[in-house]
């Protein structure tokens, strides 16, 4: 039925190993190349029948920010329920919603699904420790020579990293962007997945909180009329990051924008069916600009290098608090899992 509490870091690692051991024909365990500062190993489960690089790939990540405790449990639960339904030939149920087994079969047999539930295991361990800080956000980089510990991993990806927009160069800040783009092993592990599996065309990074479904861009308002005004052109350095002005706006092709909105609405509609929680689909910037985020980096890759796959990338901000009591967390888990099924189905049906 329903678990009664949050998994520990070891529990999440055990769950991924157990998935591989219990369903070896469906689940491959990918051990990521970079160990964390405290020596932990990042693990991703790759789900599919005969996973092949000619199938569309979807990457779902969670646990980037340590205190956002619900989402790693969500992704482990999602993986288990999906694989169990396929293995037993049964329908898939998330809360009030039942997906026919044919949907499960379609996902497992037509997709290469990568789930990386805990990008920042050191951070979660610190959050869950009696001697830790339950509201810790960053990783546990000691930042030798600097006054404070930790890097905000979702400011450390290589998208306008040097601009510092919506990020901090102060190690004591909760949005400290690190010493360089991809200075952190945890972000390099995410990049490794995108590099090693170039058929990944969709990404969701699950965060908390605010009940939002966010799509690029995060650095400035979007525009689809001037393709020459874009993040790669240094002539615009220093002009980005002011919400609502007309000095600079980030270019996004109109058909991409429509696809982002369409898939996002599908996720929203699946979530609201569960218990009426109405998530909002919007551009990442909304009122606060950001750079160095996972989804902007993933989507930006094909602009930087035309040989890269275009990755339709989102951030979902789940729930209304970082650490709800687990009975509420489980409601969030089931409603967002329903959204993820819809995301996967729509991603399969929508060409990039």
């Amino acid at each position, binding site marked *: *039925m*329903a*678990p*009664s*509490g*949050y*998994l*520990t870091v*070891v*529990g*999440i690692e*055990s*769950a991924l190993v*157990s998935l591989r051991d219990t369903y070896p024909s469906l689940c491959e365990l990918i051990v990521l190349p970079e160990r964390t500062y405290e020596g932990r190993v990042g693990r991703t489960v790759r789900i599919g029948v005969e996973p092949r690089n000619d199938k569309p790939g979807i990457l779902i990540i969670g646990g980037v920010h340590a*205190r956002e*405790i619900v989402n790693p449990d969500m992704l482990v*639960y999602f993986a*288990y329920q999906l694989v169990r339904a396929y293995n037993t030939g049964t329908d898939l149920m998330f809360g009030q919603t039942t997906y026919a087994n044919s949907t499960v079969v379609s996902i497992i047999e037509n997709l290469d699904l990568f789930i990386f539930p805990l990008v920042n295991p050191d951070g979660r361990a610190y*959050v*869950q*420790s*009696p001697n*830790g*800080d*339950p*509201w810790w*956000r960053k990783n546990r980089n000691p930042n030798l020579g600097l006054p404070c510990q930790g890097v905000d991993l979702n400011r450390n990806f290589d998208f306008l990293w040097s601009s510092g927009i*919506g990020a*901090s160069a*102060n190690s*004591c*800040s*909760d*949005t400290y962007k690190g010493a360089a783009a991809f200075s952190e092993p945890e972000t390099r592990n995410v990049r490794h997945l995108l590099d090693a599996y170039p058929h990944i065309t969709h990404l969701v990074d699950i*965060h908390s*909180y*605010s009940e*939002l479904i*966010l799509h690029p861009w995060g650095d400035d308002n979007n525009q689809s009329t001037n393709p020459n005004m874009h993040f790669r052109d240094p002539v615009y350095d220093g002009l980005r990051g*002011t*919400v*609502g002005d007309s000095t600079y706006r980030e270019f996004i092709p109109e058909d991409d924008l429509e696809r982002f909105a369409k898939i996002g609405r599908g996720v929203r509609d699946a979530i609201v069916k569960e218990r009426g929680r109405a998530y909002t689909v919007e551009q990442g910037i*909304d*009122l*606060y600009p*950001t750079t160095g985020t996972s989804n902007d980096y993933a989507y930006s890759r094909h602009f930087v290098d035309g040989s890269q796959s275009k990755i339709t990338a989102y951030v979902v*901000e789940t729930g209304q608090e970082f*650490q*709800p*009591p*687990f009975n509420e*967390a489980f409601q969030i888990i089931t409603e967002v899992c329903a959204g993820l099924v819809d995301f996967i189905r729509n991603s399969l049906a929508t060409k990039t």
Partner: protein
Amino acid sequence: MSRRYFAVVIAPSKQALAKLQAYDLDLFHSTAQVLTGLAAALPPSGAAGSDDGYRIDGLITLEDIGRLVDDGYKVLINTSGDQPTPAQTETIDFEQWLRELEE
């Protein structure tokens, strides 16, 4: 570490909201919202009334709150951030998790 509080910071304008970045506080960017129409969602003592403005949640110290208020922001304190949380008190290991899933 100084005691921290979950709080709502209310900025009178979009420019004031943007300027909050310079304080390097633990503000939750995704919670930034236009205040119009949200006044009812604030606690009854909400200092914002029904005026337009912007709100953002954060985890901040009394010292930070003092700086913000001195600079023209309004701050509504919700709860202390120093209590044990479900992340620490409601944890289970994988064996229990799997057993409960399969019940």
